[in-house]
């Protein structure tokens, strides 16, 4: 097991390093002057050539690319992500202020997705071919198809504008007003969960179907166990392993969704920050946000793989 953990950790470090290299060079090598990383478009159009050159020297952008990379890397590890070129604020502190909002919505969506996805998928596998199975499978098919931003708008139309049950948009901290916060996040969290509930339910259904055909399940039945015991104690344990692996992918989907949903509901989280920064071509912010998102997914994948090695003893020996 120790060997497995060390190997997996090494791999994560290498992948993270590749992500860093990727982000740095994508920002530097794509069309456009890297000085745009530190000055806004308006500034660049009004400043004189000499001013730009001075700035270029100040930020070390006239040094060789490799030197620039290591300078940048050093900055990143010391938590220096630069300043936003649109509002001059420190990128890291901006991210830190918005991270809790996205985590709040995202983690809730994640828990809901796994809870309902596993329950729905399991029921539909156990009751294969019945109307419950048909309903769950159809809902799952719709869930992976529906454009979440559009779903948000439709829900907003029905529950906020027409019925007036929920606030249209916005975000209040749960520590300021818990009730208002709950009312505000119902629709966004629902939208964020829809796709991943569907994906998880489909995976849970197919892996449970596979497990339910195994010999040891037949043995459990023939021992005269109740259905609940067969499903809960024998089938779920093995059937859920492929589902847990989806956690990294699920988080990745939820982050992608948060970019859209935070825009729809005007929520001041990381997703909204990412979109605004990208529309304004505020590269230091873009860089910081992407790095944070990547680190979150990478960490989840690492935890999942370690859990996987622990849950499925066959993995360790490979």
């Amino acid at each position, binding site marked *: 097991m120790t060997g497995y953990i060390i190997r997996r950790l090494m791999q994560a470090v290498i992948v993270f390093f590749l992500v860093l290299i990727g982000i740095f060079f994508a920002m530097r090598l794509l069309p456009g002057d890297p000085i745009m990383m530190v000055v806004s478009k308006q500034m660049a159009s009004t400043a004189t050539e000499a001013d730009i050159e001075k700035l270029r020297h100040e930020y070390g952008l006239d040094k060789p690319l490799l030197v620039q990379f290591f300078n940048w890397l050093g900055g990143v590890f010391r938590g220096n992500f630069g300043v936003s070129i649109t509002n001059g604020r420190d990128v890291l502190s901006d991210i830190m202020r918005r991270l809790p909002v996205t985590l709040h919505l995202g983690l809730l969506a994640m828990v809901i997705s796994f809870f309902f996805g596993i329950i729905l998928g399991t029921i539909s596998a156990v009751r294969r071919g019945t109307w419950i199975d048909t309903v769950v499978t159809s809902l799952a098919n719709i869930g992976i198809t529906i454009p979440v931003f559009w779903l948000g708008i439709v829900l907003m139309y029905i529950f906020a504008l027409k019925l007036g049950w929920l606030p249209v948009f916005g975000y209040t901290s749960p520590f300021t007003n818990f009730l208002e916060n709950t009312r505000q996040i119902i629709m966004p969290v629902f939208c964020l969960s829809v796709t991943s509930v569907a994906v998880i339910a489909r995976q849970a259904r197919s892996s449970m179907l596979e497990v339910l055909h195994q010999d040891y399940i037949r043995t459990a039945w023939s021992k005269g166990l109740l259905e609940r015991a067969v499903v809960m104690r024998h089938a779920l344990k093995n059937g859920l392993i492929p589902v847990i692996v989806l956690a990294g992918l699920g988080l*990745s989907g939820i982050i*992608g969704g948060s970019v859209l949903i935070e825009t729809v509901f005007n929520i001041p989280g990381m997703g909204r920050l990412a979109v605004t920064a990208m529309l304004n071509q505020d590269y230091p912010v873009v860089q910081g946000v992407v790095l944070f998102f990547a680190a979150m*997914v990478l960490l989840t994948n690492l935890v999942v793989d370690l859990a996987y090695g622990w849950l499925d003893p066959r993995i360790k020996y490979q």
Partner: protein
Amino acid sequence: MQREEVLKSAASEAPPRVNEVKRFFKVFLGRPLVVFGLVIILVCVIMAIFAPQIAPYDPLKRNLSEALQQPSAKHILGTDSMGRDTLSRLIYGSRISLIVGVCVVLIAGGIGVTLGAIAGYFGGLAGTFIGRAMDALMTVPMLVLALTISALLGGGLKNIIIALGFSLIPGYTRLMTSQVLVAKETDYVLAARAMGASDLKIILRHVVPNCFSPILVMVTMMMGTTILAEAGLSFLGIGVPPPTPAWGSMVTDGREYLLTFPILSIAPGVAIMLVVFAFNMVGDGLRDALDPRLRGVL
């Protein structure tokens, strides 16, 4: 008597090739949802190709005297704030979705399959590097990656295609790598090598064709994913610039009039959903019909 039965059952275990094709279509077209999906895709393709003939109005023509009308016999889905006919814009919008879908699948599929074949067949340092590079790409959520690339390149049809094409490479590479790893251990590859075939010939003639089914399924599914992602990007305002109609940006434009003219946002959303659903259903159907485990059954 007994011998004949054995022969009979042996024959049914290994049906001739003609039956295989028949079986494929029987399974594939035997599902109502697959047929439904095929019809939707066909309608969408016809809409995209013959948009000028089908659309009742010019999708770009502003007519402020007819701005913001509810659905009527003249304008079946009403008009938007600039008096443009919603149905006509919807019909033209299918062009962007399909063009982006097809181009992205070709780019991502082409690069992804090639990288996957190299990683799976040769393995070693190249394989490890490709594998880790794909891991790195996959840590950035697909939509965020596409957004970042299009922010760096600037919007526009070409850049959206590049951004999405690049973001979807890892899926193909991973699938292809795992397929090739299995295929290269087979006896027919060994036989080809024994006969002196070069690596390139083995890959192109023997390995790739045998990985065709899962790739075809993935391509179909990815059409749906791509169209959904493109709609998301154009919803965020990073997409094909206005006034070209795209379904995602039509949802955004309609938001302002949500209370009074909800159809402006709802109609394009339904269109996105139908097309994505269609590709997913056809993909599901293909997967089941091409599943080698089902060969000889039914």
